[in-house]
């Protein structure tokens, strides 16, 4: 394929509704100059509730290896080539070369007494009690601030039909600073693409917005002048909010018309009462925003325990109820669905839905050439659960599925099985996040808290096994 990225964007717009591109210019320049390292790295986190069970992600023939009860005492690696992926991963089969399945990373530094999820600890690697404010930056925010864009961080949450925006216990920009997640695809659309539309009404709207933000910056500054130091600081924080929104507006407004392609067309899914439809719309928006270069980091709070999967025919029980269905791990107590679907079946249905969305996103990125490869080559999608491997977590294992190779820094197409918790060679979520930072060119010596039961030295290192 020798299409230029611009051509692709045009065809792309015809198929999925398209996207408008600003930083594309920067990327094309980088390409022309032959400097691949300047291409942005992108990260997408998909956080799900209810655990991600090892038996449900390992390739066929290796099922027994993944489960906790078969304690691993050493690191093992299996190639995915020639192996069939789990049946719920059908849509990832064609992308198998990009997939890494990881099992056995522990997250005890984030363990809390509530077994239903580590809250901010999942991405932050620190103890975060249910309902408590975040204690520090999470990995997505850390990556986002290292690689700023028009929208530094984009969050999407499935939510309910009436929610507009939420602050779930997932991502934080620092102590006490929860990051917002869009629940309403319509709202996200307006914020992401509203000011870029050719539509006159929308354009007048964005001009009004600019006036408003200018006025507010001026207004808050005036008030600030009259205050003593501590309150000044408080208002500074508020002022920064206006300024960052205004900067965003300015950046959006200066996008090159030539790379402006049509924005995704709004479908019924955007305002559908069915929660899975809205999540699909979120994935479309995320793909468009990533391709447009509006952001480099996206986090999905893909579902929560209170939610239902009525769009998948599982509306009868909440996700929490599904978590309490018996599967081969014997945590369940509740009775099966009326149609006989059991815990294993229901979990497979939900996982397949999420894997399909991830595969869809990956395919869209793969269709866009970038540098000597495609956008997928500079992206990493991470799927994991905030309660690790099971509904009632012990936080000793956080299985995950990775798609992409971060500029070919990661070696892919493999299943990596780490030694179980309790062995000195066990590795942690913290090390995994250090690997992401290193792959993105922002290596550092520590992330989050240490698990003092494990040797400290290895926790301060990325995972060498991931790298090419």
């Amino acid at each position: 394929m020798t299409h230029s990225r611009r051509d692709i964007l045009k065809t792309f717009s015809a198929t999925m509704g398209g996207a408008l591109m600003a930083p594309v210019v920067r990327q094309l320049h980088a390409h022309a100059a032959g400097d691949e390292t300047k291409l942005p790295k992108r990260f997408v986190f998909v956080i799900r509730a209810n655990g991600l069970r090892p038996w449900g992600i390992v390739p066929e023939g290796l099922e027994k290896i993944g489960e906790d009860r078969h304690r691993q005492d050493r690191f093992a690696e299996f190639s995915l080539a020639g192996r069939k992926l789990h049946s719920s991963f059908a849509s990832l089969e064609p992308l198998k070369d990009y997939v890494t399945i990881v099992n056995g990373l522990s997250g005890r530094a984030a363990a809390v007494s509530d077994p239903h999820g580590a809250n901010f600890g999942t991405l932050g690697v620190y103890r975060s009690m249910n309902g408590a404010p975040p204690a520090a930056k999470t990995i997505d925010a850390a990556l986002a601030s290292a690689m700023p864009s028009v929208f530094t961080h984009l969050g999407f949450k499935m939510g309910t039909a009436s929610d507009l925006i939420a602050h779930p216990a997932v991502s934080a920009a620092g102590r006490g600073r929860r990051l917002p997640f869009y629940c309403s695809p319509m709202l996200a659309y307006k914020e992401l693409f509203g000011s870029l539309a050719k539509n006159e009404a929308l354009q007048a709207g964005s001009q009004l917005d600019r006036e408003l933000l200018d006025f507010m910056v001026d207004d808050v500054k005036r008030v600030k002048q009259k205050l003593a130091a501590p309150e000044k600081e408080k208002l500074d924080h508020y002022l920064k909010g206006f300024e960052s929104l205004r900067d965003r507006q300015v950046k959006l407004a200066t996008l090159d018309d030539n790379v402006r392609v049509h924005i995704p067309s709004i479908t019924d899914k955007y305002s559908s009462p069915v929660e899975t439809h809205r999540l699909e719309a979120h994935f479309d928006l995320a793909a468009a925003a990533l391709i447009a270069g509006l952001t480099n980091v996206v986090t999905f709070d893909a579902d929560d325990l209170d939610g239902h999967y009525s769009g998948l025919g599982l509306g009868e029980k909440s996700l929490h109820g599904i978590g309490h269905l018996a599967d081969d791990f014997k945590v369940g107590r509740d009775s099966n669905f009326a149609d006989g679907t059991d815990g294993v079946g229901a979990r497979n249905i939900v996982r397949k839905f999420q894997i399909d969305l991830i595969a869809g996103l990956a395919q869209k990125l793969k269709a866009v050439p970038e540098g000597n490869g495609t956008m997928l080559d500079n992206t990493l999608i991470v799927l994991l659960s905030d309660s690790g491997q099971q509904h009632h977590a012990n936080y000793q294992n956080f299985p995950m599925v990775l798609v992409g190779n971060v500029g070919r820094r990661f070696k892919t197409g493999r299943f990596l099985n780490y030694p179980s918790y309790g062995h000195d060679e066990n590795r942690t979520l913290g090390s995994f996040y250090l690997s992401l930072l290193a792959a993105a060119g922002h290596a550092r010596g520590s992330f989050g808290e240490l698990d003092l039961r494990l040797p400290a030295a290895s926790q301060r290192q990325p995972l060498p096994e991931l790298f090419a």
Partner: protein
Amino acid sequence: MSNLSRFIALGLLVSSTASAAGADTPGRAREVTPTNLADFDNQIRPFLAAYCIDCHGKDTRKAGFRLDDIDGLVTAGKDIERWEKALEMLDIGDMPPESAGKHPTKADRRRITAWITDELQKIGRGPDAARLDRPEFGNRVDHEDLFSGKFSGPAYSPSRLWRKTSQIHREFENSLRLPQGTSPFSPKGGTGFQDYDNLLASEATIIAMRINASNYAAEILDGRLTNPRGPDGKPEKRGLLRPGTSRYREFNALREARSEPTPEAISAAVRRAFELLVYRKPTAAEATRYGEFLRKSIAIGGAARGLENLLTALMLSSEFIYRQELGLGPELPDGRRMLSPPELAFAIAYALTDSPPDEQLQRAVAEGKLTSREDVEREVRRMLAVSTHGYWVYEINHTFESHREACPNPRVLRFFREFFGYDRVFDVFKDESRNPHHKPQFLFKDADLFVLSILEDDKQVLNQLLTSNRYVVHYVSPAKAKTKLEQIRAGKERNSSADDLKRLNAGITPVLGGYRGGQYYTAYGFEKETWNYPVEQPFPVDHRVGMLTHPAWLVAHSGNFDTDPIRRGKWIREHLLADTIPEIPIGVDAALVEDPHKTLREKLEKTTRAECWRCHKQMNPLGLPFEAYDDFGRFQDEVFYTVDREIAGTFFEREAKIKQAKQKKQPEVQFTTQPIDTRGALTGSGSAELDGDVKDVQDLMQRLARSDRVRQSFVRHAFRYWMGRNETLNDSPTLMAADKAYVKSDGSFKELLVALLTSDSFLMRKDEK
């Protein structure tokens, strides 16, 4: 609204007398001054040698920690972790331990902690200075010092912006009948008081408010919802407006104008918007600036969108987002300033309610009768004299969450919710299969009414809260009870059964509370078949002693499957004994062993290992007496075991098994039992008479209720809640006066509140450096 705006026309922000605008000092890179080793050798090393090295020396190394080889070069960075650890232990007074032979003086301790803190901060480490502003660090100020009488103030609060609460925002929506939007304030979350003056508005506030504003504007400008049903359920009486017409003629005038709007129309609209949203008239300068903004916006987007932009701008203004307590009154020689009358009106209103000043407060400001401490006292007393009856009879339904504030002076009740933390009852997930009767919203309401019934009497309030067994359970008003009883007799009560009539005839009053509660009252040990429902409430409930044995509190302080003696002990330690427990050390495996054969007390044995016990001895003995209740708050005096010697599940699960066996005609299910051990111990009550082993929860609560320290700790928490910040030694006079007022009035919470709201801490402001 216009009244309200008139009196505040003085303008809260207009005056700049309050705060001299200090010149911004440009940030300069700070060079680290290395630790002065002479200081270390003169002051620190001798301290360590005297108090630490015995246990943390080369050979002793208690808890694997040594200090003998530490050098004084804190700024070199190699011993950061050890210095931080030492600092924390000294700061909370955990080290040297009580058992040690000698102890440093408080002054010594303060000197050393200040030195370590300073040195660590030079290299950007050490405790975050702002943490002391957070409610969970409130107890760090020494209790004895606060009530010693040695500190004479003068007390004041810093002049400040105080972020409004979500509840104030909801009230704003209700008062204008606006559609409910997203709260613009991200929640503080966590336990403890939710409304502190150190909270910030952020970008999320702006995003949420802009979304809300366009929905609000639809109502304010188009009158789409002008005639909806009000909270009373009745439709708005005033005349129907045609769609697209505003309730406010100033806005209509602009929209109907055919040519460019006149200056008069512009300024009328700006004035109206100010009155509506920030409760005052604009100053001349503001009128010009906002007028210009409105004109420009109309030119871009037309009248409707221009007006929407104006409303949005005002709703994003710092005055709309923050309460402003700068202290605009005259300055005293010591630099303090009293709040100005309009500021006072808002401070009083938001201390007790979620609404802006009521008419009387407005009148007092307008007539110059809100200038002195006495004026404030008069208004506070007036507002406190209000009946809560409406909330008692408010019937719970599925929308209860949105009506949680349905009580007059909602902030008073909210104090008790947040102090005791029973509002967390909603957050603890319980499996339905373990007890399908569990309904947190009903337990929550019961706990509310328990508090309100005690506040009604207003005598020995804290004592009652800690020891009374007179609960309110599934309340209906006596009048309604009477009607229901008549209907049951006549066979006409919609949700009652023939059994109810049978019970009634047998002399037992059937349960009269609404059917929506199901049988949630089983948590109190009442059964539908046998409970003789008390029409007169509150009434004594067996085996209960105060709020800490109320099912709402017990559930709020429990785990998903178990009780939680540790958390309960911690709660008592921090809320009643004015003490601090360090956070769980990182790396400690906080999970208990999973063993179906063991009771929680047995599982907790793990925490009696020496390195755990240092902290856990402060919690477990206080929390274990509450093992007299299961994790749904139901009283139990025995542990039930299955034939396999496993713990036999909840009351409900056992009953279900028995019933099932009966239905299937299987042999009767057998359980063996053992009495529950509910012993514990009280330490740190401040009185040798009260400290010691306790035999059960009754014993524990009675002792706590007699402790002066417990009462003072309660006063400290009330202070924090109403001042929106932690106390400092300067506030000592305020705390002591409030405590005295409470004692002198035979434990009247009203008097305590009046003392706090007329104190210098509440009325005075001063700029902090």
